[in-house]
């Protein structure tokens, strides 16, 4: 039997409200099916399963708020290897594959982070009240989390729970609540990152003449709907550069763990403030057109806070892009437990010296913020150089 648990959709997620089951007891399910809707700080998320099987039992009633990791349903897997029966140990064994393969990487990084300073009392109170203390800000000596900090978090939690339960909330209230909780989630994740991760920053100015010329040519042949934006190009270029510098495509969990899949988190700004970071899975294996159509699909849904669980998990690196007309450089804060974030500024025409000649070229300032515990400047620099090479050869992207 497999336990299907409340997934962690990022280091900043503590719990979720099971809003609706899409399946019932006895239903056959297969990998990728949407089994339930869960309301999180990042909006209403459709939760997928990762295993073929039959729903044995639904454990949680709709409209219940549960912490990350809580079993939601029991699934009888079709795959007989992970079969049923027996001791609780065997059951744990069986449930681990999903938990670990698909969900827990981020959870682990948070749950067992040895670097968190918390008093024994605060830890006890947090555990008793199901508070995920890894995201709390400590007010004690040297930033240690104290009982008072935990009590504030409990109060906050009760308040948001009460808000949620309060009947007759208008859509406007809901959006406001969502944007408040997204704000809180961003605050917690970024504070944790800034507190714990020793960032270093590198910057390289990259000439976009060839890349843009290639894109403009490509767009001329396309219908409006199929047009490319520079972001798609940049994502692809980053993805294939990561193949050559894999150390950046990793998480830090008491050591560097390099990820084999290149899943790129792409920062989407929400109109009401806050950000959400959907993942473009296996970006190195997708064509630029595929990436562009993914962006066209995912960005409007991200802005409407309607993403699926798989789209919010597993990113192994983040890209933030300022876009047309904005600031020239962006120095990112790493999204834990990742080890790097790449920032693209506005692409703008500037004087550029090349082969002893000065010309006007479209340039972009590319920054890399990386975790110095995990990787050193030389590696970061190598990555930016490789990225430059790829952007100078857009036809091979």
């Amino acid at each position, binding site marked *: 039997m497999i336990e299907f648990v409340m997934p962690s959709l990022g280091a900043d997620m503590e719990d979720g409200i099971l809003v609706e089951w899409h399946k019932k007891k006895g239903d056959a399910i297969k990998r990728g099916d949407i089994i339930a809707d869960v309301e999180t700080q990042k909006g209403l998320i459709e939760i997928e399963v990762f295993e073929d099987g039959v729903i044995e039992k639904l454990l949680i009633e709709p409209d219940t708020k549960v912490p990350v990791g809580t079993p939601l349903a029991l699934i009888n897997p079709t795959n007989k290897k992970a079969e049923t029966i027996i001791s609780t140990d065997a059951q744990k064994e069986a449930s681990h594959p999903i938990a670990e393969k698909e969900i827990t990487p981020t959870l682990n990084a948070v749950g067992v982070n040895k670097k968190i300073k918390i*008093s*024994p*009392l605060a830890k006890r109170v947090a555990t008793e009240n199901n508070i995920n203390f890894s995201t709390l800000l400590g007010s*004690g*000596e040297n930033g240690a989390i*104290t*009982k008072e900090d935990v009590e504030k978090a409990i109060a906050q939690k009760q308040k948001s729970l009460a808000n949620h339960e309060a009947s007759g909330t208008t859509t406007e209230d809901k959006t406001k609540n969502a944007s408040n909780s997204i704000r809180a989630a961003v605050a917690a994740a970024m504070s944790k990152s800034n507190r714990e991760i020793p960032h270093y920053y590198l910057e390289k100015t990259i000439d976009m003449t060839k890349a843009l010329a290639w894109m403009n040519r490509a767009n001329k042949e396309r219908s409006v709907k199929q047009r490319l934006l520079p972001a798609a190009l940049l994502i692809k270029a980053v993805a294939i550069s990561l193949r050559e510098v894999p150390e950046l495509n990793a998480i830090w969990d008491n050591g560097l763990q390099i990820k084999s899949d290149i899943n790129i988190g792409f920062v989407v700004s929400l109109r009401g403030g806050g950000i959400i970071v959907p993942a473009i899975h296996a970006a190195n294996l997708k064509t630029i057109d595929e990436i562009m159509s993914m962006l066209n699909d995912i960005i409007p849904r991200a802005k409407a806070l309607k993403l699926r669980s798989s789209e919010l998990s597993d990113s192994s690196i983040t890209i933030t892009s300022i876009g047309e007309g904005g600031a020239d450089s962006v120095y990112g804060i790493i999204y834990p437990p990742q080890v790097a974030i790449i920032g693209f500024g506005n692409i703008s025409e500037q004087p550029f010296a090349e082969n002893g000649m000065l010309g006007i070229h479209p340039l972009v300032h590319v920054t890399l913020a990386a975790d110095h515990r995990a990787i050193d400047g030389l590696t970061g620099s190598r990555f930016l150089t490789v990225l430059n090479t790829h952007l100078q050869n857009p036809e091979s992207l």
Partner: protein
Amino acid sequence: MTYREALKQGIREALHADGRVFLIGEDVGRYGGAFAVSKGLLQEFGEDRIMDVPLSESGFVGAGIGAAIAGMKPIVELMTVNFSLLAMDQIVNNAATLLHMSGGQINVPVVIRIGCGIGRQLAAQHSHSWEPLFAHIPGLIVLSVGTHEDARYMLAEALKSPDPVIVFEYTSMLNSEKEIPANITQVDISKTKVRRVGKDISLITYGTGVYKCMDAANELAAMGIDVEVVDLRVLRPLDEETILASVSKTHRALIVEDAWKSVSISSEISARIMEKIFYDLDAPVLRLSGVEVPIPYPVHLEEASVPQKNDIINAVKKILNHD
């Protein structure tokens, strides 16, 4: 009333109350005590009750132990804690062990008063805080006189004990004046005393630390920090219940003592807090102790060698991350 006067009244009362009680020590008679605690008692009670002895700590402490075994109630005065080491053999190998080694037949109801601590520029020859040396030894009851009421009433209780009691008195406090509340006529030497009730942090201390901690607590109250002051009073056997109840309530502890930090009363208490109520702690237990040097002579160095009020205030603020 001065601390000295309180001690003297306690001795006088004991001498009046029980004919078996007598005071024995260097210069306690004709000279009136090295610190004038027993001044006038020789005239009042005579040479059989107020006994001057030669300068041999091992000899007269042994004599006191012998008298106690034989049914008397001796009060032995050791001028300063420095000299107590000369009597350590008698105290540890006889007084503390005889009950055990006689299979419970022989009690040693001796009371040994020891002048202790710093504060009078007596340097390393006549200063020091060696309460931890005595509190280490099973078979002894070790008291620390941190207030005037204890100076006045502890002796009577010590004399009731069937087992040897070591009473530490603080020479630096002799001249200090304090009113003893009229309703207090007896103290409980088996119990640690909460001198000030508070909710934010427990200041655990003894001896000269008690009034310093009270002063610090009053200043901290003005900053909005509510401090509980715990006067250990009995250093052996520790009243664990009272100590742990206080820290369980405040969730934080600072232990203040004049003694050297390594292997001290504070290390013992810190360890017990960790063993028994770890999950009630909201901050690490901190300690303020004496600097690990022989007590210096110059007054500014002497003061710097033990925790002072401002050190206590700063440490409390640090633990509470205040300011």
